[in-house]
């Protein structure tokens, strides 16, 4: 009796595994099916056009929004968006394994040469701009920061507001989680790739940083410009100086566009001179008013 039980349990277990496996496969097939199904109603004989975008993690969300909107209107297109980082995207473009590379930095000239040598000469498309605002509590008297001062604060080198013309109070550092593109951008451009202070509070969302800055008098945080202007009644956005000699600049659409605000970057989509008309069609959409509207909605600045 005992033996039979163990035996039947084994059979049952194997049966369940098989069931789970088939269920998993079925799900995947189902998904692919719906994608194909979307394509059929406009033009039954057109084949699905596949476009891949690889690159910047901070542009992932933006690229996904573009891709979704584009596919809504062009049902026979299948756009796949991959992250990995700007460098990964550019590398993929050089090797010809992606159609479009998304990058939150300019391609270096060495990379451009390499692409050309591989027969994948790159075409630069500036698609959006991004500025990061420094937010403190409205009751904090500190007037401005230089980028070096920001580095000292966020790396934990200076921990008291009195070093910056404020009262004798400990600085509470608010940062995004390490998965955020803004976290990485800030680390690269303001912290000069140094580590954040271990005491930095890592907030799960931009809104959490804004709430905390609004509540805690001696907190400092960084947020995307789009979010900062929305919350301008609850937080104080402070101007930033490039260095001691330069003027303090408030972040705004204008100062990001004319590059006077120091914590800003341009976002690019790189294509190839040999790109198909399908790829250029997507880039045209991104640069169109509809595409740029998505930029605005995602909290970035139009080019």
């Amino acid at each position, binding site marked *: 009796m005992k033996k039979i039980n163990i035996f039947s349990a084994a059979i049952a277990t194997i049966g369940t595994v098989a069931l789970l496996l088939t269920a998993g496969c079925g799900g995947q097939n189902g998904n692919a099916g719906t994608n194909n199904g979307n394509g059929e109603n406009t033009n039954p004989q057109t084949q699905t056009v596949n476009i891949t975008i690889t690159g910047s993690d901070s542009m992932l969300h933006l690229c996904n929004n573009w891709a979704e909107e584009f596919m809504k209107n062009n049902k026979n297109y299948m756009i796949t968006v991959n992250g990995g980082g700007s460098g990964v995207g550019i590398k993929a473009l050089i090797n010809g394994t992606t159609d479009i590379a998304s990058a939150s930095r300019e391609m270096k000239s060495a990379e451009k040469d390499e692409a050309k040598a591989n027969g994948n000469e790159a075409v630069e498309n500036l698609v959006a701009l991004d500025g990061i605002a420094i937010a403190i509590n409205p009751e904090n008297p500190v007037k401005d920061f230089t980028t070096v001062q920001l580095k000292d604060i966020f790396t934990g080198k200076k921990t008291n507001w009195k070093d910056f013309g404020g009262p004798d109070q400990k600085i509470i550092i608010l940062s995004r*989680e*390490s998965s955020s593109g803004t976290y990485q951008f800030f680390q690269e451009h303001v912290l000069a790739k140094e580590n954040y202070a271990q005491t930095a509070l890592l907030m799960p969302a931009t809104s959490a940083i804004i709430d905390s800055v609004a509540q*805690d008098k001696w*907190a400092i945080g960084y947020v995307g410009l789009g979010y900062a202007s929305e919350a301008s009644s609850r937080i104080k956005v402070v101007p930033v100086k490039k260095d001691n000699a330069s003027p303090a600049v408030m972040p705004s659409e204008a100062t990001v566009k004319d590059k006077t605000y120091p914590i800003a970057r341009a976002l690019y989509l790189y294509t190839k001179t040999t790109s198909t008309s399908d790829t250029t069609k997507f880039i045209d959409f991104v640069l169109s008013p509809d595409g740029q509207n998505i930029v605005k909605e995602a909290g970035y600045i139009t080019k």
Partner: protein
Amino acid sequence: MQKWKEKAVKLGLLGASSTSILIVLLIFFYLIKEALPFALDPGLSSLSGSLWAPTSMLKESFGILPLLTGSLLVTAMATIIAIPVGVIAAIYISEIARPAEREVLKPFIELLAALPSVVIGFFGLVVFVPLVKSVFGLSTGLTALTGALLLALMAIPTIISISEDAISSVPSSYKQASLALGASKLETIFKITVPAALSGIVASITLGIGRVIGETMAVLMVTGNAAVVTMNPLTSVRTMTATIAAEMGEVAFGSHHYRALFWVALILLGITFALNILAQKALSKYKLG
């Protein structure tokens, strides 16, 4: 024919009930499979440090000490808060409360157990964070203590309902004997009933701790998530669960960081597994006794 049918049904039922065993085994298997390559490169010793900087651009560092101490600090404090409240409430409900009171108390406690943790987290963000900040005169209310208060809130219903079961299943002959010997009602409760139900109470506490240490959303929202090694309840801490939840979403597949997160998960699973076994042991003891 009839016999075969019966066998088939029996087999089906057995299959359905063994699915959960299978899933637990699969989870263990995949966690180990994803975590294991980390032991070869960069090696397990890199987990023992006290700096958690998995995305550092200078040198990645995967010391899980701050995450461990963060989880332990929050869990220990939550337990200290939840035990007296939960056990006393359970004693009151099962021994002292009138039936009418019981009818009101029990559904509310069950409701508290059913609240989604993100709702409790939101409540904590709005109520507890400013409260802790002003009571202790801190500059931010995002502290380990705030997280512990919320977690205690979640552990209390578990402790109450299982402890209450244990206390009310103490045979009434024990109590009658005690009262007949001249003990007062309070003496009977604390010297006879509670000791007799002790293993059930211990099990309820262990299960409560299990829930607390695995809780993610609420702690992610209110503890501030700073990866520092500290035993000060009024500073921010980063728990293991919050780390996995916050970082898994964007981590590069197969990277050291990815594998390190699986190690964190594996350690967490080990802890909760051990707690559950302890609770089972305690429970079976009180069922026999």
